[in-house]
């Protein structure tokens, strides 16, 4: 187990260096000269040469890349490209917890409700309730999240005035973003839970448990859920990844000051250092989620041993 975790961590390193390289190269290919931007009106060829030397931009690209990696390893992201007074690290520290909180809440809601709906649907296969849940799953997977967002904002914020439209600060501001973010994960957790529980229900030991007179709830909790849990747990892990990506739409719609918002603003302002940092943060989050999913799978499944 320990060996497997170490191996997976080692595999994450090339991914991360690869992402950093991609971002570094892209930053250099990007139109515009940072020195010219920094100097602005005070631009003269001599001043530019001095600044270029000070910033180390006249050194070979390979040397600059190694420096860049060193900075990243010590979590120094530098200052904003457009707004030199602003430290990228501070920006991330303010935004990241908000996005993580949103994603965690959404996944928690999706996991609890999705497992419940999946189990319910699996116990009444083919009945109207099962079909209704299945239809909801298809809808949840195919309707774009911004359309769902529009429908919810229209109903709950504009028609019934129950919730704020957009804004940030009050706990009720979390409700709509979390719900919108939870829809897609909810749909596929439900789908996986239904098929997984449905399969286990056909097993001989479930029939035996029933035939010896156990009540349905006891059969479900003791025999079915434990054996059906593995794919569901893995899916919940992957749902976290979906929720992090879904934040792009949700943070734009509801004006949430999270990390996706920071990334989108950086694109609008062509703020390369901020953009690079946000992409790296996302890469790190994804590597971590994938790692956690695979490790928990290995841990939970007695048939997988490393």
């Amino acid at each position: 187990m320990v060996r497997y975790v170490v191996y997976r961590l080692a595999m994450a390193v090339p991914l991360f260096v690869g992402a950093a390289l991609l971002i570094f190269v892209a930053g250099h290919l990007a139109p515009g000269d940072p020195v010219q931007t920094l100097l602005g009106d005070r631009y003269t060829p001599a001043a530019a040469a001095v600044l270029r030397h000070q910033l180390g931009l006249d050194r070979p690209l390979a040397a600059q890349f190694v420096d860049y990696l060193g900075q990243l390893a010590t979590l120094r992201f530098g200052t904003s490209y457009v707004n030199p007074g602003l430290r990228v690290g501070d920006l991330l520290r303010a935004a990241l917890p908000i996005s993580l909180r949103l994603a965690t809440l959404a996944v928690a809601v999706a996991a609890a409700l999705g497992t419940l709906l999946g189990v319910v649907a699996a116990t009444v296969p083919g009945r109207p309730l099962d079909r209704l849940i299945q239809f909801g799953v298809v809808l949840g997977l195919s309707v774009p999240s911004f359309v769902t967002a529009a429908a919810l904002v229209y109903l709950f914020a504009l028609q019934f005035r129950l919730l704020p439209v957009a804004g940030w600060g009050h706990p009720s501001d979390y409700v709509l973003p979390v719900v919108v973010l939870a829809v897609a994960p909810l749909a596929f957790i439900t789908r996986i839970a239904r098929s997984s529980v449905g399969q286990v229900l056909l097993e001989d030991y479930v029939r035996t448990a029933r035939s010896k007179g156990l009540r349905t709830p006891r059969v479900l909790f003791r025999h079915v859920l434990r054996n059906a849990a593995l794919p569901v747990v893995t899916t919940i892990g992957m749902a976290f990844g979906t929720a992090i990506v879904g934040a792009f739409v949700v943070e734009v719609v509801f004006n949430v000051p999270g990390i996706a918002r920071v990334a989108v603003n950086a694109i609008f302002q062509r703020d390369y250092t901020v953009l690079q940092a946000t992409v790296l943060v996302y890469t790190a989050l994804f590597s971590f989620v994938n790692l956690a999913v695979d490790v928990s799978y290995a841990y939970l499944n007695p048939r997988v041993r490393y």
Partner: protein
Amino acid sequence: MFGTERWKAVRLALGGDRLAAASAGFLLALAVLAVAGPLATRYTYDAQDLDALFRTPGAAHWFGTDQFGRDSFTRIVYGARVSLSVGFAAVACESLLGMTWGTVAGYYGGAVDNALMRVVDLLIGFPTILLAILVTGIFGPSLTNIVIALVLTAWPGTARTIRSEVVAIRERDYVDGARALGATTPRILARHLVPNVVHLLIVRATLDVSTLVLAEATLSFIGIGVQPPHPSWGQMIYESFQYLDGHPLLLVFPAAALSVTVIAFNVVGEFLSRVLDPRYAGRH
């Protein structure tokens, strides 16, 4: 390369599957409308009419008008043009790249396979939107860059699908036979492997159009996709968000167009995957 027999089977099966037939019909109509573009409407997508703001649907404006008095139906038709051409262009490129990559990796195996598929593994873990944001964020949101971003995110999946099928096919007797008869590698690839995986490619491409049309809409919605005044469904949905209170219809039309298109491509893709499966033959 793709027998008329197969197409006949598809047509026959389509008669028995009303949902798939309706979806295919919708997509065909949408494509015709998108190509016909200017012929389908007497307005242009950016002509403002300040005397006719926020008109409700009627004879003059089928889907009403927006905050600048622009005709919504016209903008949806032109939006279809953008969505479909971005979707098709991206799918064509990623299919070609994924097909070549997957076929070469699967056929040669060994170290070549290993090297090629590690690249795929690396990219496949990367979420679509993130790559797209990196590309359009750094190089600017032009249509070409959006297509490049979408190709980058989609081809690894195609490569993986094709590779696994090629690995299974290359051990078949007819491939051995062709090799024994002295067929060159390019000939084996082109005559024996590609025709036998092309049905998978068609299915995959159809499902990918759906994903990529949605991805383009998402990028445009966030503001880093198609730029105004060129209309795109995602961007129209974003703009109409501000007028949701009072003019909800403004949002309903582009949202419906996008959702129905995405669902229709999915339905047709699922249908094709059932019908084009070689094991389906003779079961209609």
